[in-house]
């Protein structure tokens, strides 16, 4: 079930909310938790019934491992070794599970290619959200190892992992930051403040996904499908469309997740802070998929030694962290290369910073955005050739196509450009596509962040009108599209 499907919007979410608040206002805290857990498992089973066992099994095993780490905490030296052994086993088990479902075929294909073996591909499929719930559970085990006093009940743990607004694509949350929000405080009253803020955030997310991300998706898909024929403008429309699609798709999803959680009075951490406004690559990673960046920093980069072991080791750690980041997004050479590019960019940025030159913020933004936008091409492309075709188009190697109506006024360019009505044919965009892409880009750069708007929300008629109108427009677009387009991050 997708967040942008009618089943979710008109049936699942309202019904779950009704039952949850009915139970909560009667002080049946445990029943309300069971309500969320049941709804979450139903939500997961709806999308992937055959993988429900993988999810439930993973929750059960990780809870028991966490309990074992906590149980061994009281014992002194022996206990420490046991805790460490259980932690290593737990992390390895989670990584193996993820590896089996996500990377087995990648490893087999790589081995077949490099050493000429003939292993056949395994038809495993991939449980939805496995990257997210596995990382969340690894973080949980490490946190329990570091702070064994954390109290966890099986019910709370199940709720923490399976919570439906974030099970499929995060945000990757720590136990300590989400679960206190769920603590029963007895005799709760219906709290409309988070409900109103949640509804607003949810509407904004739906609008971003359906109205802003979808047209970009169409142009990006068409552009990448005809990459060899992309003229200069078409190539830029394609790459920008994908950058914007990715941002509005994922931040739209996150807003919907945060909004839905808020309606249950649970506050999840934010994931985006206007990333395309970043003036350096470090700034970009502090604003893009923030919970993943935090996870990689706290559970990969710092344990590797962070920046404490000298410059060379710091660079090495950055590269390893970003290679893992690339691999986490997908089992494929292009994802690894994308991670490598970002790792290298961060190293270059650190070296630049050591020179003590100050870069103008605008120049910094241009360089950062151009880099991020170009790197996304590798993230999206089907193959190396496909990526190179788009990049060649972006530097003008496939020529320049301009609207036929400009032919007379730009006659001096007739030997350099082709004037044709089909100047955007490869992206199947209309003449307005360029303006729409630029408009959406301006929203991405200058628009206020959803979290900020939601938390300064004043319940006024104008805000209610705006929110209601956003929902209405989203409904029109949603129904007129026939099929719900899945969120990009569902496949990671």
């Amino acid at each position: 079930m997708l967040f942008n499907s009618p089943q979710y919007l008109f049936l699942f979410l309202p019904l779950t909310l009704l039952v949850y608040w009915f139970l909560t206002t009667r002080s049946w805290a445990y029943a309300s938790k069971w309500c969320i857990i049941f709804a979450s498992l139903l939500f997961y089973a709806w999308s992937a019934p055959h993988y429900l066992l993988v999810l439930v099994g993973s929750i059960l095993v990780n809870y028991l491992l966490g309990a074992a780490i906590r149980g061994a905490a009281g014992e002194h030296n022996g206990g420490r070794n046991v805790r460490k052994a259980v932690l290593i086993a737990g992390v390895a088990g989670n990584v193996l599970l993820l590896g089996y479902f996500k990377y087995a075929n990648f490893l087999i294909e790589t081995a077949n290619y490099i050493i000429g073996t003939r292993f056949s591909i395994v038809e495993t499929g991939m449980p939805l959200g496995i990257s997210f719930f596995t990382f969340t559970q690894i973080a949980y085990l490490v946190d329990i190892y570091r702070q064994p006093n954390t109290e966890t009940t099986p019910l709370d743990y199940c709720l923490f992992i399976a919570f439906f607004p974030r099970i499929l694509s995060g945000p990757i949350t720590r136990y300590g930051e989400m679960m206190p929000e769920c603590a029963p405080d007895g005799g709760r009253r219906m709290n409309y403040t988070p409900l109103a803020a949640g509804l607003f955030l949810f509407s904004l997310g739906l609008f971003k996904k359906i109205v802003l991300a979808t047209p970009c998706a169409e142009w990006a898909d068409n552009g990448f499908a005809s990459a060899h024929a992309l003229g200069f403008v078409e190539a830029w429309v394609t790459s920008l469309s994908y950058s914007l699609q990715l941002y509005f798709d994922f931040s739209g999803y996150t807003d919907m997740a945060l909004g839905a959680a808020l309606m249950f009075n649970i506050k999840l951490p934010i994931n985006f802070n206007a990333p395309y406004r970043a003036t350096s690559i470090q700034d970009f990673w502090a604003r893009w998929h923030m919970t993943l960046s935090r996870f990689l920093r706290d559970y990969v980069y710092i344990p590797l030694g962070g920046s404490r072991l000298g410059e060379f080791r710091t660079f090495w750690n950055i590269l390893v962290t970003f290679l893992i980041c690339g691999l986490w997004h997908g089992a494929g050479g292009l994802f690894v290369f994308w991670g490598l590019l970002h790792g290298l960019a961060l190293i270059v940025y650190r070296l630049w910073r050591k020179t003590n030159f100050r870069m103008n913020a605008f120049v910094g933004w241009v360089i950062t955005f151009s880099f991020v936008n170009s790197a996304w091409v590798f993230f999206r492309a089907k193959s190396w050739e496909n990526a190179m075709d788009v990049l060649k188009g972006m530097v003008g190697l496939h020529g320049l196509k301009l609207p036929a109506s400009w032919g007379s006024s730009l006659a001096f360019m007739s030997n350099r450009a082709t004037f044709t009505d089909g100047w955007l044919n490869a992206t199947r965009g209309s003449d307005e596509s360029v303006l729409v892409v630029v408009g959406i880009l301006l929203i991405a750069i200058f628009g206020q962040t959803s979290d900020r708007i939601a938390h300064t929300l004043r319940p006024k008629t104008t805000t209610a009108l705006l929110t209601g109108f956003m929902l209405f427009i989203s409904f029109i677009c949603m129904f007129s599209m026939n099929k719900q387009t899945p969120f990009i991050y569902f496949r990671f």
Partner: protein
Amino acid sequence: MSYSYSHKGFFYLTIFISLALTLVYCLTVYLLWPTIGEYRGLKDYVMKKERAARMIGDTPKIIFAGGSATLLGIRAKDIETAFGIPSVNLALHAGLDLDYVLYTVKKVARSGDVVILPLEYEHFLYDGATNSFKASFVLSCDREYFFHALRPGQKLEYLFHIIGFNKVFKTVKRFHSVQLIPWALGDLNENGDVTSNGGERRLEEISPAPIQSGEFKETEGLLLIKEFSRWAKEKGVIVYVSYANRVYLKDYEREEYVRYFENLKRYFVRNDIAVLGTPYDFFYPVDLFYGTQYHLSQQGITLRTEKLIHMLTDMNPAFFKVLPGRNPGDAVTGGGRIMRRRFRD
């Protein structure tokens, strides 16, 4: 002037506004759309064809249904002349999708009839989604289909489809200048055949037929054919699935096409659905086409219909007996008279 509310008021007001706007929109579309008469021409076609089928009465008949490749691909009159069995070309516009095509067949098919479905490749790939053209047509001209054949969710989808997503970014001028039927149609004879091609002869871009890539899956289109075949068996109607006429391209010799066509055949055999010919039987040289790569010229229609007569005779000689003294090739000039009922318009 903007009034402040409590969060409770804001919450309910927002939900009220979005639902109220949605309701007003649905009502507006529902009440006002029929005043836009752009789809009347197509509706006349549908009505004429249904009438052609009903005029035959209870005598067993042959029905051809599909998209415009059947409309401009088969001449029912020639079939009727060759076999002496009343025949009707019920084919419509491919934009009305397979579910609507089969719905119209169900309305006129009786026990003992033979239904031949020379389907276009898009029909096999049909994913159940609607489109603005079909939604507009149904809401303008076929409220019965809207009320009786659609599920509640689909009804909403149709209502919302009037202002399609793509239109959001397009100008009003463009929205209203959409050409609904890109090829002009000639008159219909009493068998529902188009008697002349209209519009430009020059073909649009020629490309290979769309097929499933990767693993073969049961699409919504195939599921509809399977359900239709089941329905037909219950009603005593014989069904043959066949393939649309299309411009021959070398691409069809590629492995992916050969494999896909083989998978389609296997699928039909597995589901006990009779198939008439292979896709390769109905690929023709480009000079026999007119306007689009699915529409044959009148000469092309004659050739294709002759081929079909041969195939039907071979396939079911007991049912399809070419009338004595008449060769399939003479069908065009044949003069078999079939009694038809008189219906009032």
